[in-house]
């Protein structure tokens, strides 16, 4: 009979028979990658739903994905660039800002989406089981589509200023992954907290604002004294943004120490997020 490939199973015993054991005592960190893999289609459908629904009933649709970074870029170029004359590593201001806004906008929206995802899906959560980690994972992945769309504008800008990408561009997927992991780490923490305390959703807009000023979006990280650079790098987005600028334009130095610190910070953030999220997982349906 049609027992399909997707197994709702926790452990597959030697006999090939799957047994789910339900208990209150749960491990500390038990991210079951096998189970997550079994639910990969669900991640796909959640991402797909998000994208399909996001621009329904809007007039300009996906153009919003371009508008936001472009307008922000213009404002930054005018005020921080032309008026405040912030150093831009010899790059034209639009390029300097847009290359930072690409990962930043992605991070900010993905993080906010992930924060709300558990609460938004409370009906589903209280009615059916699936690995709850699927929710924040799919919400940070859905943001990648807008991110890809806004890239098109960046290439147009590059062509306009006659800047060719250098070989450093091969690092781009790595920096994108780092941004995704940062958003996921924060999202794991905040989505679980938001299920408990709805205060979180009011905190997040402030958090995004503060975080942006703590990241080299509006200014280059070279403004930060060299001996504090590692500390600055503990903000994972510092490494990501500097990495993006470097990978896309080839200007400046590869963000060595900054990146090392950022990678460590991301690893810690994601791991702690998984532990906290996992601790909440079993009872999330009762409290959300």
């Amino acid at each position: 009979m049609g027992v399909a490939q997707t197994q709702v199973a926790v452990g597959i015993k030697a006999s090939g028979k799957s047994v789910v054991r339900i208990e209150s005592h749960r491990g500390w960190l038990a991210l079951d990658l096998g189970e997550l893999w079994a639910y990969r289609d669900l991640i796909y459908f959640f991402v797909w739903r998000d994208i399909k629904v996001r621009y329904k009933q809007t007039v300009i649709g996906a153009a919003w994905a371009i508008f936001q970074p472009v307008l922000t870029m213009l404002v930054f170029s005018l005020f921080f660039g032309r008026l405040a004359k912030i150093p831009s590593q010899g790059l034209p201001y639009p390029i300097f800002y847009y290359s930072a806004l690409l990962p930043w906008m992605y991070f900010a929206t993905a993080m906010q989406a992930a924060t709300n995802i558990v609460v938004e899906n409370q009906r589903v959560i209280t009615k059916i089981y699936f690995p709850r980690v699927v929710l924040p994972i799919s919400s940070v992945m859905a943001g990648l589509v807008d991110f890809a769309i806004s890239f098109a504008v960046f290439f147009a800008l590059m062509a306009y200023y006659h800047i060719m990408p250098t070989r450093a561009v091969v690092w781009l997927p790595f920096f994108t992954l780092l941004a995704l992991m940062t958003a996921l780490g924060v999202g794991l923490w905040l989505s679980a907290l938001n299920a408990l305390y709805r205060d979180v959703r009011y905190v997040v807009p402030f958090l995004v604002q503060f975080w942006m000023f703590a990241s080299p979006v509006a200014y280059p990280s070279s403004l930060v004294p060299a001996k504090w650079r590692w500390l600055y790098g503990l903000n994972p987005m510092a490494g990501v943004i500097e990495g993006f600028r470097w990978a896309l334009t080839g200007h400046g130095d590869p963000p060595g120490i900054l990146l090392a610190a950022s990678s460590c910070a991301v690893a810690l953030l994601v791991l702690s997020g998984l532990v906290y999220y996992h601790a909440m997982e079993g009872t999330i349906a009762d409290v959300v």
Partner: protein
Amino acid sequence: MSDIAIAAGGLGKRYRIGALARQTTMGERLTHAMKAPVRWLSSNNRRASGSHVDFWALRDVSFELRKGEVVGLIGRNGAGKSTLLKILSRVTVPTVGWAEIHGRVGSLLEVGTGFHPELTGRENTYLNGAILGMGRKEIDRKFDEIVAFSEVENFIDTPLKHYSSGMQMRLAFAVAAHLEPETLLIDEVLAVGDMAFQKKCLGKMGEVASGGRTIVFVSHQLNQIRRLCEKVIWLDQGKIFQVGPTSEVAGAYEASVSRRPDSKDNPGAPNVQNGFVSWEIVEPRAESPNMLTTSGRVRLKFVLRLNKPVTDGHHGIALYNHERQLMWGWAANNLQLTEGTHEFHYSFPTLPLKPGLYSWLVSLFDHGREVDMWSCFPEMAIATEIHQHLRDEWNGILNVPCEFGIQSSQETALAEATEHATGESS
């Protein structure tokens, strides 16, 4: 290899209600935390201090179900049926105890979980299927079958927000019915709705069961339980009250719910209660005495037990739908009733109401003072054939068959018009 499908041992689920549960913002949580030492000093019994109350929705539940068994889960509201189902379907974890489930589990605690109104029927089929645990290829394979079962072929590419709730339910059940799990957990999803579709769903579930799959089924409708299940677990106040063959347990349960809860402890004793004790549908006879499956004459019986006579009685009766809208009401005055048992009989030529759950409210006053006011339990389930408009918002409350015809008299209309025109021109 054992043939056990589900085993559970000492399952319990505790909910905290009271002060603690209401602290939903961090501020409240902080104040609570800061007051904690004070509370601890003032009282070493935390429960007495009123900080929270433990409520065991489920307690010490153990059972074993074999493969291919179809088990009904019955009990009053709040008996723990849904909590047990939630634990077995892994929506929530138990506070104590354990359970083991062998094989793929499908759970249907709600129809159409995750449906999105902006997406089309087709898109929702995939989304809902994935949420239930099906893979994309699996849904591809079963898609045509699902759509055929749901009977919404013509609307499959229409956004779901334009569907009637009946259509949504049909699509949702169709997806769930094609999940093909080894164990299927079903909450009361067929409680209301179109009789024909209910039959189809029950048929499908019977098919699933005969294929050797295990089903755990929660329902208030004992006729459904009787039709499907060979074994019944009766939960009461979070504990297993009785387990056994359907005929035995369902009968005992039925006898218990058709009496009022307060008379349960001492049903035989006279004079324990002054008021209504039970109600039932006398005609037409259905599988359950609180269920209407055919239209036509309906006769009801309400049993009243009095331990002192009523000299100037006023009796009222009202029928509400599940949204507490009043459907019908009636009253009788100047009643003289002796001590003892009385049966109030009501007879209606028909009760043309839409399928669903309805509740009777009966009252008795003596010299203006309340003797009894009873919101009859169990509710009356109406599951007659439905005559309805395609769109829910045009359905109204009545379910009345009607005959429709068109009589056209084009020639006369035309002749009149011509006559009128000629009259004007002359």
